């Protein structure tokens, strides 16, 4: 996944929200980056720091929550947790799984002054 594009989009969204809330500075960001979203969170942190330079969110603390992947197994007809796409069903070992969650990339909340 393309962390620089994501970081730039994130900082635009943060500025938009901060301005709408008449905030002077953004001190903390809480993101939700699902385990199946193909985002390297280490690279994302680096990119967000760079993208925030000179703006309202410069130096903001970054909290990244990583919800686990969830999928529906077509073999045993149950919702299960998976660590990666292509991983077998932990209940029955089946490999026909439809991903249901864990691929989100969201700005959850932000702390401003």
């Amino acid at each position, binding site marked *: *996944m393309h*962390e620089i594009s994501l970081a730039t*989009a994130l900082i635009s*969204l943060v500025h938009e929200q901060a301005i709408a809330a008449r905030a002077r500075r953004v001190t903390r960001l809480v993101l939700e980056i699902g385990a199946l979203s*193909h985002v390297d969170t280490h690279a994302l942190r680096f990119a967000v720091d760079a993208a925030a330079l000179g703006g309202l969110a410069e130096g903001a603390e970054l909290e990244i929550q990583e919800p686990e992947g969830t999928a529906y197994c077509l073999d045993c007809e149950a919702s299960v947790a998976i660590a990666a*796409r292509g991983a077998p069903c932990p209940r029955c070992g089946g490999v026909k799984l439809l991903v249901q969650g864990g691929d989100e*990339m*969201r700005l959850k*909340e932000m*702390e401003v002054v």
Partner: protein
Amino acid sequence: MCGTCGCGQGEKRVEDLHPHQAHDHAGHAHGHGHDHAHWPEHSHTHPDGTTHRHSHSPGHAHSHQHPPGDDPAAGETRLLSVERDILARNDAIAAENRRALRAAKTLALNLVSSPGSGKTSLLVETLRRIGGKYPLAVIEGDQETTADADRIRATGVPAIQINTGKGCHLDADLVRTAMARLGRPDNGILFIENVGNLVCPAGFDLGEAHKVVIVSVTEGEDKPLKYSGMFAASALMVVTKTDLLPHLDIDVDHLIENARRINPTIGVLKLSAKSGEGMDRWIHWLETARALRLATD
């Protein structure tokens, strides 16, 4: 710099098909667009005297405000609940593109693959076979050069090149700009050939009806497991260069099994643009998808 793939936000350019002041230099032509640099960052001064530096993506609005210093809330720490997708802006533009394409009864396909999978060769052969029957157009994405758009235009089909500079994928805004310059193939098919990259284009909706992932038989059986996001996002996998199979050890059935492990509903076609084997089925798939677009609102 993207830590995953090493790309950055270079100078993005959409080829100008009707430049106002185009002129030739010793064998190459270029046009003067109206674009300006959004990246790297630039500085500007507001009416209240504050100067700052910033950067933004193409298609942004230039106006923005700073909060007044006498804001009653100033100084208090507040928690804002946002709950928005980070790529919400790209997704909103993609939705606009999708609405426009649907209104024009145009089938748009986003062709994704690693570099060298044979996307452009497949496209050239496809256009040669269906050109003239109904409107066709091609948007070509590459980091540099107009070589691919030139190959497409040689078939007589209109094409426009987007150069993403250091960027590793197309986004919805670039495609919107390209569509405006190229003109839509109403009642026909718009092929969008994405930058050769099996990672980043998976996350960026362009407004297409389907993503089609193209894998050549020389790439081995494990691509779907190594780059699962792309196979999960695609409706169809096209296995290309099947004329090379006698020279290779690849087990194509195992490749297909791996793709279905990532995406149980993915369709599969095997073909060779060179020998023509399997091309009829691909053309049939395209015409069926186009018929569905024409038949539905």
